[in-house]
């Protein structure tokens, strides 16, 4: 894992199902694991997490997480998130702390806007490990 504060990046992650992903995130961000998993599942019922080909953005706002975090996972091997979201290679997960301060929310919203840029997504999908981590660190530093 490389990163600090809000942003963290993980390369060659070995997730094989979305349940693995939810489980991992819940375990690393909250004391209330099952509630967080439920919150991801509930949010997903409202709409797909797929934001680009091979990229999903699972995200929740939760009173059960202590810190807001954006976790970027480049997978060692792509997997099918669901029937629609196949061959997923990049997972950008966001847990937003309930009543997070406005400055942090603004930082997150800026990052989200950058995900509209196909070239940036493409870089994240194809960068070598060092570059991948650098992209995230740069992002954090530029906007600190």
């Amino acid at each position: 894992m490389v990163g600090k504060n809000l942003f963290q990046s993980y390369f060659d992650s070995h997730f094989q199902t979305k349940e693995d992903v939810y489980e991992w995130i819940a375990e690393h961000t909250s004391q209330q694991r099952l509630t967080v998993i439920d919150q991801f599942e509930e949010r997903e019922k409202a709409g797909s997490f797929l934001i680009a080909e091979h990229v999903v953005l699972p995200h929740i706002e939760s009173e059960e997480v202590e810190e807001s975090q954006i976790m970027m996972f480049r997978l060692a091997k792509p997997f099918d998130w669901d029937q629609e979201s196949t061959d997923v290679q990049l997972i950008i997960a966001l847990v937003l702390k309930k009543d997070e301060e406005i400055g942090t929310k603004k930082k997150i919203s800026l990052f989200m806007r950058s995900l509209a840029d196909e070239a940036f997504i493409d870089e994240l999908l194809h960068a070598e490990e060092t570059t991948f981590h650098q992209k995230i660190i740069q992002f954090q530093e530029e906007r600190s």
Partner: protein
Amino acid sequence: MKIIGVAACTVGIAHTYIAQEKLENAGKKAGHEISIETQGTIGTENELSAKQIQEADIVILAADVKVSGRDRFEGKRVIQVPTEVAVKSPNKLIKKVEEVMAQKQ
């Protein structure tokens, strides 16, 4: 064409902002004037002015939740879609907008 719109999603932190950016990029690329207001967890940003609303040819509501101030668009042609449509297929959505306007004329 002058396009305005609002983006608003369930959590209000992710799709709202991606949808805004993608719609604005796709609209500009297609040669239109476009401005999308965001109603997210931060509150309202890039708020549409009365002049922008008055001059707009069409309104896109990319929303998964109730849009605040929807009555501002009364009498306007409105296209409403879930945010994921704007996120996944912004160019197609702008094409659809063009088709709707062409039918109107």
